[in-house]
């Protein structure tokens, strides 16, 4: 009986970690690399404080806030979608992923408008180090968003099934974890580029 309860508790502990082990390795690896990016921004700020402060003042905070809200809201929709798929799989769950994709597309459109406004105002990656980091790092993040949208489209298709195997649930969770990573990276970039 004791052995059985130990086994049960092990199973319970296992199921508490969402997604596959591999996605967590991926998240850790990506965070490690973005940490290098964050350090570069911080070093640039320390070395060229005046240029960074002046350039930061030219950013439109409204674009940054809108993008942050879009990604946070999108993450909420995706999390609800995954939870619904886990508890009661049905074709109706796709709406949550659809809303998540809508938020992601909104982010991309907003980013295009923001970049366009900056380029029209005469700012480009060669203007100074701040704008170099701004365009390149938000560009690399944008690639993450586009990959994430592809992942969400895959999850949307999967969520329409009336029954999901344990492995399919794990795949759903892994996809959602990637989307949350995109969210987390943006929050860090937003803080470093727009706020601090």
């Amino acid at each position: 009986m004791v052995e059985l309860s130990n086994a049960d508790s092990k199973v319970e502990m296992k199921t508490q970690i969402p997604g596959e082990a591999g996605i967590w390795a991926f998240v850790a690896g990506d965070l490690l690399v973005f940490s290098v990016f964050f350090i570069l921004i911080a070093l640039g700020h320390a070395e060229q404080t005046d240029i960074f402060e002046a350039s930061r003042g030219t950013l439109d905070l409204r674009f940054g806030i809108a993008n942050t809200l879009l990604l946070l809201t999108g993450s909420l929709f995706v999390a609800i979608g995954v939870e619904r798929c886990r508890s009661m799989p049905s074709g109706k769950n796709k709406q949550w992923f659809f809303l998540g994709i809508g938020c992601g597309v909104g982010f991309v459109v907003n980013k295009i408008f923001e970049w366009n406004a900056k380029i029209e105002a005469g700012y480009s990656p060669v203007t100074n180090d701040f704008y170099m980091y701004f365009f390149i790092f938000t560009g690399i993040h944008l690639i993450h968003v586009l990959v994430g949208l592809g992942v969400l489209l895959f999850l949307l298709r999967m969520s329409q099934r009336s029954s999901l195997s344990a492995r399919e649930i794990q795949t759903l969770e892994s996809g959602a974890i990637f989307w949350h990573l995109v969210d987390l990276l943006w929050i860090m970039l937003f803080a470093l580029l727009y706020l601090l």
Partner: protein
Amino acid sequence: MNETAIPSSSSDALFRKTLAFCGYTGYAAIVLFIIGGVWLGGMLPALPHANDLPSEIVAKVSENLFEIRIGSIFMIASFALFGTFGAGMAMQTRRCETQPGFSYVQLVFSSMGTTIALLVAFAWALMVFRPETYHPSILLMWADFAYFLALFSVPLFGGWCVMVALPIFLAEEGKEPFPRWAAYVNLWAVLLFAPGQMVMFFKDGPFSWHGVVAMWIPFVAFFVWIAVMSFLMIRIAQTEDS
């Protein structure tokens, strides 16, 4: 007929030995690059810089002529082993396919990747072949050429990783050629190679071909990828042996 038939057990043993061999060549490629590219050849960290004047490149190269020449020999030996390393991954992928698919695609990427990598070593060697005769700007061009081959070729090396990851993700449960976490490592590597394409736009700073983002991150990710996949090939061979 019986004389030519190969017993399945011995052919499996040969396969396992071949797979382990391919894995060890991945390790050998890393060691040879560390000797040739890092210690002697001045490729990582970059001895010449993208913002150097041609005369500065000539001075740097001339001061380290012998080391770079020896380093180039080690580098070309390292890069040639990408072929056996890639073939090993394709072999293991082929085992899990009913009909050949991704294994063949991997072989194409592996061949192209090996060719491009060999050209890196060629460019590096030609840079030090007769620097006293070449116009200084030619030396700069060889250095540009070497780093562009290595870093700007993101779709090739990234595509190779994707072709390793996809058959893992798409395989039936329990029939994956490599553990599923390896697929994520491959995708992670793709993301890290991506900043390499920034070398087109910058001649100074972290996005230039001597910079931390465009050079260090893709180079380190590439060799970590080789180490991980080599480890897995050797482990699969050893596990099946035991």
